[in-house]
C-alpha cells in the first residue's frame, strides 16, 4: 500500500507507506521523501545500527517498538513520551502532538519521533541522539522539526477526510477507499 502526500512545495513531497504490520496490536507506517530510495525510519535504524556505540540501544529500541508496542500492548499512552514536542499553529483548532518513543531505560540515548493515530496505528519518522535537555538544544533538532512538518501535513489530510482511518483493519485509506492517494 502506498500513499503520496504531495504539496505545492517540492521539498515537502513525501509518501506514506507501511513499515510493519506483522504485530498483533499495531500497524506502523513511515514516510519517504520523493526520489529517496529509503524511508525515514529505515534511515534511522540503519544509521545507528552501523555505529558501534549505539548498536545495542538501536536493537533495544527496535525490539521495544516491534515486540512491546507492535505485538504486546499497542500504542498505549504509557509507552510514549509526550514531553515538549507539540506543534501548534494549524489552520484549524487543535494541535498536533508528535510523540517521542523513549525506550524505558535510564539515560537511553536515542529518540525516534512518531505520530500516534490510534492505539493501533502509528506513523514513525526519523530521530537521533538526545544529547541536550530539550529537542531544541539536541543534535536531533533537525529530525524533530522534520517530524513536526510531516505530522502537520498528515494531520491536515486526516482532518479534511483525504485520509480515512480504517480502525477495523488497522490501516489508512484514501477517501474513496483505495489505498493510494495524492494530495
Amino acid at each position, binding site marked *: 500500500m502506498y500513499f503520496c502526500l504531495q504539496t505545492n512545495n517540492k521539498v515537502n513531497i513525501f509518501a506514506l507507506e507501511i513499515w*510493519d504490520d506483522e504485530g498483533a496490536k499495531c500497524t506502523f507506517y513511515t514516510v519517504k521523501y520523493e526520489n529517496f530510495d529509503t524511508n525515514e525510519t529505515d534511515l534511522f535504524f540503519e544509521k545507528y545500527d552501523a555505529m558501534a556505540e549505539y548498536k545495542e540501544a538501536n*536493537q533495544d529500541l527496535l525490539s521495544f517498538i516491534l*515486540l512491546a508496542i507492535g505485538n504486546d500492548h499497542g500504542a498505549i499512552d504509557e509507552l510514549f513520551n509526550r514531553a515538549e514536542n507539540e506543534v501548534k499553529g494549524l489552520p484549524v483548532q487543535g494541535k498536533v502532538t508528535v510523540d517521542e518513543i523513549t525506550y524505558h531505560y535510564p539515560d537511553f540515548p536515542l529518540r525516534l519521533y512518531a505520530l500516534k493515530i490510534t492505539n493501533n496505528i502509528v506513523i514513525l519518522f526519523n530521530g537521533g541522539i538526545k544529547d541536550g535537555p530539550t529537542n531544541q538544544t539536541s543534535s536531533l533538532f533537525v529530525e524533530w522539526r522534520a517530524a513536526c512538518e510531516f505530522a502537520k501535513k498528515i494531520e491536515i489530510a486526516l482532518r479534511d477526510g483525504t485520509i480515512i482511518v480504517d480502525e477495523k483493519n488497522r490501516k489508512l485509506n484514501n477517501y474513496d477507499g483505495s489505498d493510494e492517494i495524492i494530495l
Partner: protein
Amino acid sequence: MRSKVAQRILAETPEETKIFARLYADIVVRVNQLLKENKLSQKDLADKMDKRPSEINKWLTGEHNLTLRSLAKLHAELGEPIINVPQRKPIAISEGTTGYVTVYRNASVNTTDVEYTNAWKKSKTNNKTPLANVS
C-alpha cells in the same frame, strides 16, 4: 509485511534484548493499570511510599531502572504482584515416571496442591446436537 531493515536488525538482536524490552513494557503497563484500578495518582503512591513524586515518576517513565526492591515496594502498596515467578511441580506421567510442569501462582488466590494425573476422564456422550438455549 515488515521493513527489510527492521527484519535484518531484529534477526541480529540477542534474545535477551527482546525479552527485556517486552518484560519492561509489561511492568510499566501493569503498574499503571494498578494505579488506575486503585484510583491512585503517582503523587498518592509517592505519599504512601514516603518517596518524592519525582522518584515514582522516574520509575514509571524509565528514568530509573526498577530494582527487585522497588518492585516489592510497589507490590506491597498496590496490593497485587507486579511480576510472577513460575515454579516447577512434579507430575506423574506413567507408572514410575515423573515429569514436571511450570506452575504460575497468583498470590491473591488461595490454592491447594492437587495430584496431577495424565488419565483423562471419559465424559458423557451427548448424541443430541446442541442448540442454543432459547425459550
